[in-house]
């Protein structure tokens, strides 16, 4: 695509060295004409998430800003903020031009459609 595309992934890569990388949780399910990936990425929005497809590897990267509250000190912690990264291999049956990604309330939804030729076709049987 564009040559000078500054993406969230580039930003992630630049500062990766000293940030924790978390593996986000996913649900992957099949629908009639494709597949859906739901990825939990709290703290991430459309500006800080990146989905890339390289050959048949779908990579999800995201970045959650560290929480900081002026005048408060962190007393107890159960989760950390940092980068998210996870990659999946997708089959050739997926239509690479029809991948949709939406992020809402910290959940990334990726919809993959089956390529036309890979769709199951019902064969009409006629009585002979």
């Amino acid at each position, binding site marked *: 695509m564009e040559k000078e595309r500054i993406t969230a992934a580039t930003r992630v890569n630049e500062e990766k060295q000293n940030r*924790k*990388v*978390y*593996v*986000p*949780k*996913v*649900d*992957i*399910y*099949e*629908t*009639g004409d494709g*597949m*859906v990936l*739901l990825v*939990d*990425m*709290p*703290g*991430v*929005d459309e500006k800080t998430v990146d989905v890339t497809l390289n050959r048949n590897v779908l990579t999800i990267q995201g970045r*959650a800003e560290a*929480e900081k*509250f002026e*005048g*408060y*000190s*962190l*007393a*107890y*912690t*159960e*989760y*950390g903020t940092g980068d998210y990264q*996870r990659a999946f291999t997708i089959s050739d049956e997926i239509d690479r031009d029809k991948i949709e990604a939406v992020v*809402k*309330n*910290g*959940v990334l939804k990726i919809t993959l459609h089956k390529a036309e030729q890979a769709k199951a076709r019902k064969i009409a049987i006629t009585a002979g």
Partner: protein
Amino acid sequence: MISSIWQVDPFREVMRLRNEMNRLFSGFTYPFEEVYPAVNIWLNEEGAIVTAELPGIDIEKLDISILNDTVTISGTREEEEKKGRESYHRKERMAGKFSRTLQLPFKINGEKVEARYEKGVLKLILPREESEKPKKIAIKSS
């Protein structure tokens, strides 16, 4: 489950560590968390800020209640459009009902609690009850 932030329970600490490891390696192990949602707590003399990781929640189905020094976050995480899901390849995300109660080291002023939900993170600002705030005692010299 009531968890006081002042007591360091070694068992909880181990569970926390385990959860942390699960998060780091959740691609390899099957993640399982006892406590949901995971929270961070920030304190100062005026009160506390609690943040909770709650991605994909419908705020209509989220309840926050305050009782004395405890705050309870409960709700349901429902899967949207369940129909049409033919088969799962992976199912790691938490679904269903959850409830968590946290105990703070002071009485919360329920009237002034603020809650915000953004990018799947819930932020609660819990001010300390006025009468419970530390008082400075003036020392008179005789």
